[in-house]
């Protein structure tokens, strides 16, 4: 082969990686970054749903209204409480389930399948199942509480219980996922290191702390990040169960966004809600990234 042929071939080889990332890049540009920047721009306009292309640029007007609106703080608080509690309870239950199922025992495969069930059911189906169970008149929960002599509860329509009821469904869906991730990590804990801890006189809890927990911590952290981000943007369960009510006690940013856009007809304002949600999710990701970097740095010392 001639020298110029070789050169043009090596030029092609250099271009090849770009050729491979081009299709996903185009896809992301068209379906993600373009709509995202449109939304960001829209949050700076007074676009209304009746005439989406006739919005006027109003600068930070929407955000100013947001800061002065008490309903925004209710929504923000609902989002934060919902997210934090989902992460804490969901991850804790998932880790406990993973630890319980890590040891071989009879019927382990069946137990694992049952525990995974919640994750396998689609969100909408799960919400409908739970909606029936929460039903004030015929739901199974009120049957039980009546049998126990506690009377009936308005699970989804009382400001005291609504968030808790939504949380219960969310945790039921999220914990199996956490379990799966943590279980994978648990099964790669080196057996010899556990045995070394036993020889060194560590009891069960100390072995867990010294060997198992450090090994699965990155996986727990990753699961927590994903659960947090999903909680910030979760729509199906909340909307189907309570629609954001009662009195906004479960109206997270995403639910509020839908309400503002399609009931209040204010697309510009809804976009501002979306921007806040995005900022929140990015903040969580940044925290995870920083923690991960610090851990890597510490481990390599």
């Amino acid at each position, binding site marked *: 082969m001639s020298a110029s042929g070789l050169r043009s071939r090596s030029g092609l080889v250099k271009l090849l990686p770009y050729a491979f990332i081009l299709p996903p890049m185009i896809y992301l540009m068209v379906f993600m970054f373009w709509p995202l920047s449109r939304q960001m721009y829209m949050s700076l306009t007074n676009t209304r749903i009746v005439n989406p292309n006739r919005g006027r640029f109003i600068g930070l007007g929407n955000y100013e209204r947001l800061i002065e609106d008490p309903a925004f703080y209710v929504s923000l608080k609902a989002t934060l409480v919902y997210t934090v509690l989902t992460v804490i309870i969901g991850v804790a239950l998932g880790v406990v389930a993973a630890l319980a199922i890590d040891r071989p025992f009879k019927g382990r495969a069946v137990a694992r399948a049952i525990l995974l069930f919640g994750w396998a059911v689609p969100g909408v189906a799960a919400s409908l199942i739970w909606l029936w169970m929460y039903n004030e008149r015929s739901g199974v929960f009120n049957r039980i509480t009546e049998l126990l002599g506690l009377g009936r509860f308005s699970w989804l329509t009382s400001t005291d219980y609504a968030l808790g009821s939504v949380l219960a469904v969310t945790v039921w869906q999220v914990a199996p996922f956490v379990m799966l991730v943590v279980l994978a990590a648990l099964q790669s804990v080196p057996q010899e290191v556990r045995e070394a801890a036993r*020889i060194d006189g560590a009891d069960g809890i100390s072995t867990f702390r010294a060997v198992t927990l450090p090994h699965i911590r990155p996986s727990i952290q990753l699961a927590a990040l994903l659960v947090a981000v999903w909680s910030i943007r979760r729509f199906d369960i909340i909307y189907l169960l309570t629609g954001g009510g009662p009195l906004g006690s479960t109206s997270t940013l995403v639910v509020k966004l839908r309400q503002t856009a399609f009931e209040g007809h204010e697309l510009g304002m809804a976009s501002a809600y979306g921007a806040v949600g995005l900022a929140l999710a990015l903040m969580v990701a940044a925290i995870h990234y920083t923690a991960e970097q610090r851990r890597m740095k510490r481990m390599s010392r």
Partner: protein
Amino acid sequence: MPALTFNKVSKTFGDHTVINAFNADIHDGEFLVLLGPSGCGKSTLLRMIAGLSDITSGDLLFDGSVANDWEPKKRGVAFVFQTYALYPHMTVRENIAFPLVMDAFRKWYHLPIVNIVARHRLMKRADIAERTLGIARQLELEPLLDRRPASLSGGQRQRVALARALVRNPDLYLLDEPLSNLDAKLRTQMRSEISALHHKVGKTFVYVTHDQVEAMTMATRIIVMNKGIVQQVDTPDEIYDHPANTFVARFVGSPPMNLIPASVSNDALQLSGKLPVDHAAPLPSRRHMTFGVRPEKLTLHPAGEGRLPAQVAVVERLGAETVIGCRLMTGEENNDQRLLEHDLVFVRVSGNPKVRIGELCSLDYQAGDVLWFDIDSGDRIFPGQE
């Protein structure tokens, strides 16, 4: 200090018997090596001593008391794992101090927050800190104390594992192929360091290896195992000079002992079926057996001078000595079209003699250096004592 006794100890996994009725005594202060090929049950045996594996049947005695169900902690043993099994997220200091911290640990330290404070304070406690530092100094680990295992070399990790074993000053050290993950040069160095360590601490060491060189150089006594059965228990010299059977003869020594099928008819010895040899010493009183002689007991001569005519097939020059693999000339070699060389007879000569592959030569031996083995069972036989 414990003297260990194995009394018909067996281990089975399902239908598979790993160790079958193992009997042995481990004396106080000795360096005992369990030697055998992979999968012969030697690591399982070590794990039984440590209390990491259950004993299926039989008794393991520590100083005369049955210890089958003792927790590892109660046995007072230290274990060095093949993969070192260091705690990856702890510093070298925390790794070494971990057994001491665990000794001083109280149940209520498990409470949240208390745990962090307690561990922090235990690490700083004068006796623990000093002992950790002392051991680290002895093993030249002091500059590495605040590093983590991931940033250490193989040899350094090995020393941290040893330090963690030493720090509690146990009576019994169990080492499971601790050198197999090191490169050849480091292995030689660590071998002498572990030997020196044994002399200094004067405690009992039980060392598992498949490397006969490690066994020969370090052991005061060797147990050779194969397929869960003890083949021979003796000092390295005895095992080398007087192997109990062909397995031991072949496993110990590099190159291994030459084992040549032999037959006797009309009081005349024939090797490899066809080659008559004037043996000039008493022969076993049976027709077929195995003739064994160590490579260094054979001598190399020009063709025609020795009793065994041969042809050079392989020459390995090691500098100080040369190992020459020869084919015995039984009169059938012209039919032999195989590419691979089997049944070579190895001879070890000092220096660097001028021999070429394909050259004709001859070998000779002293009748007193020959060992005889049963052709079927492989057991050693003694001419005149049968």
